[in-house]
């Protein structure tokens, strides 16, 4: 084999080639980073879509049918999903638990929302969550992966590296927090939490469920959680909130594990105001909504209402 001698010329050539390669690679990465960091509010603006009612509460033994009834009562999915929209359905798939243990959103509720989104003309329905337990196990054991796939949704493991630093137009402890890009870049955001106990937040409902689109070291959000969740909700502005209160976890949340802690409420709550939906859900659990720090903060800031008595609520049995 003829070996090339390392002359001065060759050495310089090699150095130049290496530098060019580095510069190209660096530019590529820089472009990607620059695209991710623009100044000003970079969240999802409030589209101001209203339903026929402030809230629709559907009761029934079948969570799929209740979900359909609740969303139809609001005015139908076509109010939120336009033709060729990219829809994100964000359930809670945080834990390696079965649907009966009520730690994750009921798969039937997710299935109903997927079906309705496609009927309304959605181009693509994404389903994902940043999980707490191993993602493969939670996706499988929650039953959500199987049913969402069957319904034609695009269910995938959240890319926790594909994030955008959060920027609000005001000062916030959440500014610069990495938020999943796919959660921001969607036409319709449907937040589908499960109602359950949480030792710090009191209850975890829709505002807390938004922690599942956060990257980074999420444990740090817990310090001053009320303010942070309010800001996060203000950043994402979900078009539709559907609270799964079919089975609720009364104690030992948010993980649970024992069926003794699970209670059937057979209720699905749908609304356009996440704060109101959370407030109603809290009432269901005999909790004063204003005792939940995130609701209190959101009401004080004036971007949501917790006044259930004044709200226009449709009850479907």
């Amino acid at each position, binding site marked *: 084999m003829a070996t090339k001698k390392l002359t001065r010329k060759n050495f310089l050539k090699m150095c130049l080639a290496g530098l060019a390669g580095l510069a190209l690679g660096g530019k590529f990465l820089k472009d990607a980073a620059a695209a991710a960091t623009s100044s000003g509010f970079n969240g999802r603006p409030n589209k101001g879509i209203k339903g026929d009612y402030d809230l629709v509460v559907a009761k029934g033994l079948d969570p799929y049918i209740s979900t359909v009834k609740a969303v139809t009562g609001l005015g139908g999915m076509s109010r939120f999903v336009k033709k060729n929209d990219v829809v994100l359905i964000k359930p809670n798939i945080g834990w*390696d638990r079965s649907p009966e243990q009520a730690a994750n959103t009921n798969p039937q509720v997710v299935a109903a929302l997927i079906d309705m989104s496609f009927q309304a003309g959605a181009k693509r329905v*994404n389903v994902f969550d940043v999980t*707490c337990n191993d993602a*493969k196990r939670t996706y499988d054991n929650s039953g959500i992966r199987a049913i969402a796939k069957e319904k034609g949704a695009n269910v995938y*493991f959240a890319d926790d590296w594909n994030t955008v630093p959060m920027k609000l137009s005001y000062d916030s402890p959440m500014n610069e927090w990495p938020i999943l890009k796919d959660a921001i870049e969607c036409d319709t955001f449907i937040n589908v939490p499960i109602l359950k106990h949480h030792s710090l937040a009191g209850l975890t409902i829709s505002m807390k469920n938004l922690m599942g689109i956060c990257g980074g070291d999420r*444990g740090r959000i817990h*310090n001053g959680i009320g303010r942070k969740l309010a800001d996060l909700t203000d950043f994402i502005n979900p078009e539709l909130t559907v609270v799964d209160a079919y089975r609720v976890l009364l104690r*030992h949340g948010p993980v*649970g594990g024992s069926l003794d802690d699970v209670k059937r409420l057979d209720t699905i709550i749908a609304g356009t105001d996440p704060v109101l939906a959370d407030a109603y859900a809290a009432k269901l659990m005999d909790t004063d909504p204003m005792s939940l720090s995130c609701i209190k903060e959101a009401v004080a800031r004036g971007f949501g209402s917790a006044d259930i008595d004044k709200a226009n609520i449709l009850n479907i049995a």
Partner: protein
Amino acid sequence: MKKLIIARRVSQASFLLLFIYVLWSTTYPLKGLIHPEMLFKTDPLIMIMTSIAERALIAGTILSVSMLILTIILGRFFCGWICPLGTMIDAGGAFGKIKRENDRLNDKIHPVKLYVLAAILIFAVFGRQEAWLLDPIVLMARFISLVLIPFVTSNITFIFELLIRKFGSQGAIGDLYHSLQSSVLGIKVTYFAHSWLILSIFAAILAVTALMKRLWCRGLCPLGALYSFAARFSMLRRVVDISAKGGTGKAPCRMGAIKDDSSYKKSECILCMDCVYSYPPHLTRFSWPLFRHPEENQRPDEGSILDSSAASRPQNDAGGGISRKKFLFVLLTPLLLSGFKFNERKEIGKPEGQGHGPKPEGIIRPPAALNEDDFLNRCVRCGNCMKVCPTNGLQPLSPETGYASMWTPELVPETGYCEYKCTLCGNTCPTGAIKRVTQAEKLSIKLGTASIDRSICIAWAGNKECIVCEEHCPIYEKAIKLKEEVVGGVRIFRPSIDEALCVGCGICQNKCPTRPVRAVRVSPRNSYRP
């Protein structure tokens, strides 16, 4: 057409790919076509030595003995046609030419592996399983599981990350990536401590091929040594007719099995079939002498037909036994080595947390790992448990903790916790070093006990909201209890451990937000070691 060589190469490539496939599918939900423990249950060195050291017949030993029986019929077909390390060595050495070697050199190289085997056997008799160090299947599996697969998957992931950043995740590229991720790529299991060392050792084994073809297989491999014993009785034999066309040389041989007089050492022949084609002056073939055609025995030039049975026995190689001096040397070496206390087990894995040395708090072993002595005897360091661990929490112990525990699995909660309902590590362990348990049993198996360092805990020292550890605790009654306290008008919850409930899974340590040291840490205290 070198039909036999093509057949051998096809066989080698297929088994190498199969080997990689089996290890690749060693991941949740463990639904590959072949169970990963089969790679080791068919390895007689591992199974027999572990059985001897443990004074117990380990399930699957019979299966591995059947490989020895096959070797008695066919010879060392495993080394030439199946062994994945042998295939890599052949591929690595394919560019070099076979050097002409004489008997004197080969007679020196070949027996070395027998000494290695003898040392392993003596250790086993004295109750120490040391087969893991040089077993080729283990070396290969560890390299593939802990180096090759993480390297390939993390690089594919990196390329997709760049592409998705550029073109967005909602197009064809994103879809391809997400479907690959949930099918073959997997997520998260990409980091293994000091995988560079595992790579270096593997590379070194391939590199010595530059000195001499299959030098590892000729001189060091203890599994090859075991097979060479069985191959001495092999029924399939090489028959060569040296007088047919003249020619004074001898056929080149990658194992150095062909002697200067063109007869061969049956125990060193790996049936690579090179000599059938590579030296035309000699007519070489492999046949079954038991069924030899009667005509053949009556050929006039019978004297020039060399058959191993006649020529290879009374030599000073494997067949000829060893001198008293050498025998004493073999017997004494392991004992002398023990004098250095190189495989001392005293300081490692102390569950009581009273050890000293590099890991004074002890080592968190996988769930239901046997008691430390039996565990170290059974563990062959194959890496199956680490490959299959869904959180990437099981890591190979570095040589820092000593030879005796090198590359055995350790749970490192910072990289990954023990998933509460997962039983995969015990399910993939080929020698039962990690006991196989059902999911119901697993839920109460203790790996250790967590404790909270109040001097750095956010709630205790910082008087701030946190409860991340309590929130993640998988025990439904919560092994981490919260105490509500009002400090300066602020309501905070302070965590403490209920040691009776804690299973030591380490999810609290994994998720604890304090840095650089976590405020809640698990030590192997009170762990369950059957």
